[in-house]
């Protein structure tokens, strides 16, 4: 049993979300995309807070929305739990009452609802805050309450809207791994919306990358990380992405320049190059690398123990080097160096 959704929502004359989503029970699917891509609209439709303009949503054989047939099950009657972006815990209710709310709304008596809510609070590790008002909780604690509140009613579909974006870096790391555990235990289907590739990669079994209301790429995290198909995805997973035409092992790049790869292909291809695969030299190198070309430094950006260098040339390229290399090569904006890249470090795949 599973989720089958053909989603089409017209938000304005200029923006339409179109999304086909199929997910099995126990599976976590992430909708990944920049702000304004339509991800949250997708979640609202699944939750029943927004009706489809076209299409159909079916969950475990139950039709939740069918625009053509005029069927629409409102949010309060869907077997769905949702964690909102800033959690939206009811500020006037205690943590326990927040978690018990869904059970009470579904008709469970107060005593049973509270006991069950209490168990869930223990399960997410914040039993001691049962009587606290949400306003006094930290971000991480509030996130756990929101998760318990969404899961306590045993939903068949769990929707997470940017579940970690309100957290600071340290808390985020901790809550992310906890959330992963809960998602693994959760028997239903999970749909997660995020703009953070790391959240998506860690939490999801499958990714749908959405740009301007359209799915531009989908696959497992590994597939997406290894073979990005748009500049946005390439930027997310941190690789250089080029489009070009391949004849044998030579790829003529659309942006100018030629790269030699180790796999022979013919036709339109994508070429992905990791920033760590490129090395920089003061003078033209004469080693084994098949690709060398002159480049000019446009900018430098410190990233912890490495420095990312933006270079212009044929082609433009992002290269990660050590701070020592920055000093050795005297890399400053405007300085000229040589880039070299082994053919075996280049991945090419059909466009």
């Amino acid at each position, binding site marked *: 049993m599973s989720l089958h959704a053909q989603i089409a929502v017209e938000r304005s004359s200029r923006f339409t979300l179109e999304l086909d989503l199929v997910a099995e029970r126990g599976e976590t699917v992430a909708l990944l995309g920049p702000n304004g891509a339509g991800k949250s609209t997708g979640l609202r439709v699944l939750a029943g*807070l927004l009706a489809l303009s076209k299409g159909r949503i079916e969950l475990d054989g139950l039709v939740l929305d069918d625009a053509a047939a005029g069927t629409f099950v409102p*949010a309060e009657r869907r077997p769905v739990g949702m964690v909102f972006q800033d959690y939206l815990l*009811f500020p*006037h209710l205690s943590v326990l009452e927040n978690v018990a*709310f869904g059970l009470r709304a579904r008709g469970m008596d107060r005593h049973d609802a509270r006991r069950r809510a209490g168990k869930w609070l223990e399960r997410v590790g914040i039993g001691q805050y049962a009587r606290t008002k949400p306003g006094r909780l930290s971000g991480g604690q509030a996130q756990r309450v929101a998760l318990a509140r969404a899961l306590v009613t045993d939903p068949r579909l769990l929707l997470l809207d940017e579940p970690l974006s309100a957290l600071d870096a340290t808390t985020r790391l901790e809550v992310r791994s906890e959330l992963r555990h809960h998602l693994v235990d959760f028997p239903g289907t999970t749909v997660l919306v995020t703009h953070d590739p790391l959240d998506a990669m860690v939490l999801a079994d499958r990714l749908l990358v959405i740009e301007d209301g359209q799915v531009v790429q989908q696959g497992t995290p590994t597939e997406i990380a290894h073979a990005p198909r748009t500049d946005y995805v390439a930027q997310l997973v941190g690789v250089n992405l080029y489009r070009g035409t391949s004849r044998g092992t030579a790829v003529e790049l659309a942006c100018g320049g030629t790269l030699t790869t180790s796999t022979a292909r013919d036709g339109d291809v994508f070429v992905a190059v990791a920033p760590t695969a490129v090395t920089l030299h003061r003078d033209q190198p004469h080693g084994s690398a098949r690709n060398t070309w002159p480049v000019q430094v446009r900018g430098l950006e410190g990233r912890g123990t490495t420095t990312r260098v933006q270079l212009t040339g044929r082609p433009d390229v992002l290269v990660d080097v050590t701070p020592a290399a920055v000093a050795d090569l005297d890399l400053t904006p405007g300085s000229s160096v040589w880039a070299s890249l082994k053919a075996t470090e280049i991945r090419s795949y059909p466009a």
Partner: protein
Amino acid sequence: MTATRPPASITAASPRRRRRGRRTGLPVALVLPAVLGLAFLVVPLLGLVIAAPWDTLFARITSPTVLTALQLSLTTASLATVVCLVLGIPLAWLLARSDLPGSSFLRALVTVPLVLPPVVGGVALLLVLGRNGLIGQYLEAWFGFSLPFTTAGVVVAEAFVAMPFLVIAVDGALRGADRRFEDAAATLGASRWLIFRRVTLPMVAPGIAAGAVLCWARALGEFGATITFAGNFPGETQTMPLAVYLALETDPEAAIVLSLVLLAVSILVLASMRDKWISPNAA
């Protein structure tokens, strides 16, 4: 007008007295009317306090006439507020939440009693609810029940004039409230009525409280609609403002005392609002 004294504008603009990056010179054209305006609002109230017969004050306040009028005023204003809450909160919800095409027109309609002279309101109420009125004749014929010139009539007149205050306050609070909390409640399985009761209402409670206080204060001070619709019978329809007006002709000192009581109640209301409801993070 001595030649040696520098003009005031130069003194005000001297660098030593100027705070960093901010103009401190206040234009006389604004300050003068501002001070006059303040005096205009405060001096009459001070006059009331100064003219009060302080030595006989306590005896007068506890006199049966004053106590009766005060009790009637407090009772009717409170009842009117209850009526306004029961009818006004749902009305405000309708204005704020439903996507009715004419909701802005409805909102304008609701505010009419706010700008309408209360006497006109009283006349309108008489025409509709009076013994021969559109609805009043049936009340009389079917239930033997007549509103004008009764205590219930006072409540109706006060509610008519005061309800817009409540509706506008609650409407504003509802439109300012984050509707995503209602979405969250819906995903938790709550019906619209349950959402209204358990989420919306508690979250706009400060707005309701502020609206209720304004509404109550307006009802307490109501004069025009009350005297037109309910008359001026001591113990039955003679509220404090009516008693003040009447006393002014026969016993000016009593009028002052009654006015002082109303002033004290107003200040009390204002103070209670400041403490509890005006601060944004009220518990």
